[in-house]
């Protein structure tokens, strides 16, 4: 077969099922591609050739014995290093978990294995998923395959870079305030945050429990939908898991629920204009035009509370983080420092956490501790939760009138590595457009919309009501097909070739 790293996940699965190629050959081609390109990109923090090939062999053996194959059997995947998987380390990009090997599998990992998906390795991320650039990792910076001097987005930047660099056709990320959608946008791929509660958080190391949600990265809307259906579903081990059927996202991505003709699409007033780069705004305006030409009824929708999403998020998420990360105390797993026989347990904890956490994690723990402390609770955390109610009401009012909401995914294209590293508030603004739907809990997708400033990818964000994930796939698939017709192929065809000297 031709270059196996250029196939979509659905094509690879079909080829494996038909016996045109083995899962081992597919895995080998991607492991080779990682070896050739990852010195430059640094998407992965852990790759285990033997483990990967053994997983591929299991798929080939299942096929040989005539057993049923899952819809993604034999397809390789890059897993964000925030999900536990037996047989591999889980670091969450933090020194405090350096070398930790979890004794259990995340539910998502079990589901991948049951579906015959072959995990290639664990991808780099901002420490404990706090960041928008993957610069906050204790294991080095990940580079954007479109331009190695630029960030790949974050916090799931290793996963987005791996898919854009053809190291894997699929990847999994997590999204708390935009950590799937923003990396997808700046690397020119598809990324989806499902409805909160759709994907089990069991085995997902917690950052902000009321917001964290796993989701797919892919090079096409259909591939994202196929992975979405593998990942999602009720899990009794996660008390926030939704006990209801997964919306028909793959059918929607195949166009079986119809196109956009007659659908009502709302353009959010507050998520465009000032603060958005000219190239980003231009691609967004073109998408709006295109949707109109495809028969959608596009209207403008005002959601005034969205202006307060950023301050509310940067109180709620750090508050939950300060509580969740209290478990890293150097007693049961991970790093322990300062245990010299003289220091008491509190000192050992403080020394361990000082050595083990990076600056952004420390900032957020202290910020959250402040927001939750007596005397400030009502003014900060309490107020932020009320703002969350107002944002939810804005969404609910909007979805009484429209089927989906539309905005640019990010205010800018990928910024240069280092540019915002020590300016937290500037970094936080990368999430301006993705935060509202995180606080609300509805599904949201980022889809490539073309190239903007500096010839770098721009993403458009599609949002829908809670448990209406199929709507973003339906509109996303129609848009993808119309845009690719205009471009003469996928946007990723225009990515510069990476040098393949590599770290062999």
């Amino acid at each position, binding site marked *: 077969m031709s270059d196996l790293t250029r196939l979509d996940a659905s094509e690879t699965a079909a080829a494996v099922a038909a016996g045109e190629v083995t899962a081992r050959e597919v895995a080998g081609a991607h492991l080779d591609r990682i070896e050739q390109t990852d010195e430059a990109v640094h998407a992965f923090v852990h790759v285990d050739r033997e483990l990967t090939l053994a997983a591929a062999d299991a798929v080939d053996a299942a096929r040989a014995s005539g057993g049923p194959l899952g819809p993604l059997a034999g397809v390789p995947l890059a897993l964000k290093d925030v999900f536990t998987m037996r047989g591999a380390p889980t670091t969450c990009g933090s020194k405090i978990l350096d070398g930790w090997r979890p*004794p*259990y599998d995340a539910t998502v990992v079990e589901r991948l294995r049951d579906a015959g998906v072959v995990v290639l390795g664990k991808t780099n991320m901002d420490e404990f998923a706090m960041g928008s650039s993957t610069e906050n990792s204790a294991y080095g910076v990940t580079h954007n395959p479109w331009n190695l001097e630029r960030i790949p987005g974050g916090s799931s930047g290793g996963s987005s870079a791996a898919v854009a660099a053809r190291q894997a056709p699929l990847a999994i990320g997590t999204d708390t305030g935009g950590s799937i959608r923003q990396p997808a946008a700046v690397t020119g791929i598809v990324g989806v945050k499902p409805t*909160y*509660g759709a994907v089990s958080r069991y085995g997902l190391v917690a950052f902000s429990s*009321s917001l964290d949600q796993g989701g797919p990265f892919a090079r096409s809307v259909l591939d994202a939908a196929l992975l979405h259906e593998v990942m999602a579903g009720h899990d*009794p081990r996660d*008390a*926030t898991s*939704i006990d209801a059927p997964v919306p028909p996202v793959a059918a929607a991505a195949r166009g079986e629920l119809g196109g956009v003709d007659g659908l009502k699409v709302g353009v959010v007033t507050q998520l465009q204009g000032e603060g958005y780069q000219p190239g980003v705004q231009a691609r967004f305006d073109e998408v709006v035009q295109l949707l109109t030409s495809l028969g959608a009824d596009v209207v403008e929708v005002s959601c005034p*509370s969205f202006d*307060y999403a*950023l*301050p*509310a998020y*940067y*109180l709620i998420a750090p508050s939950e983080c*300060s509580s969740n990360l*209290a478990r890293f*105390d*150097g*007693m*049961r*797993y991970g790093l*322990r420092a300062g*245990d010299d026989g003289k*220091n*008491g*347990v509190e*000192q*050992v*904890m*403080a020394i361990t*956490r*000082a050595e083990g956490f990076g*600056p952004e994690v*420390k*900032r957020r*723990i*202290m*910020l959250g*501790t*402040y927001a939750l*402390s007596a005397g400030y609770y009502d*003014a*900060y955390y*309490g*107020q*932020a*939760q*009320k*703002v969350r*109610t*107002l944002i939810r009401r804005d969404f609910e009012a909007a979805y009484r009138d429209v089927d989906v909401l539309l905005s640019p995914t990010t205010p800018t294209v990928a910024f240069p590595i280092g540019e915002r590293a020590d300016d*937290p*508030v500037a970094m*936080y603004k990368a999430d301006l457009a993705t935060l509202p739907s*995180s*606080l609300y*809990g509805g599904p949201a997708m980022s889809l490539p919309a073309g190239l903007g400033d500096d010839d770098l990818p721009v993403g458009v964000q599609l949002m829908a009501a*809670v448990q209406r994930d199929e709507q973003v796939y339906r509109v996303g698939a129609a848009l993808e097909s119309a845009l690719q017709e205009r471009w003469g192929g996928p946007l990723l065809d225009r990515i510069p070739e990476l040098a393949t000297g590599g770290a062999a």
Partner: protein
Amino acid sequence: MPALDRDDVAHLARLSRLQLTDAERDHYGEQLDVILAAVARVAEVAADDVPPTTHAVPVVNVTRPDVVVPCLSREDVLSGAPAAEDDRFRVPRILDEEEQ
């Protein structure tokens, strides 16, 4: 908006169980001031009659069948421990000198 002085940051760091140097206290103090100024805007909206939202998609009374399932083995639980002794986690002393 209260500007955070070095003592405030030291207090926060202690509550957060983070040992910081003086230089770090100054640095984080300045950054936390900037962040707090940016997020204090939440006070501009949200009147008293607005209820808080704690979860994106609330589910209530989540139960599971009362069936015993195996837990992790002791060996697995201790496999990641920074220090173990006699099949238990070994921890530093938990009482201060004067409490002993």
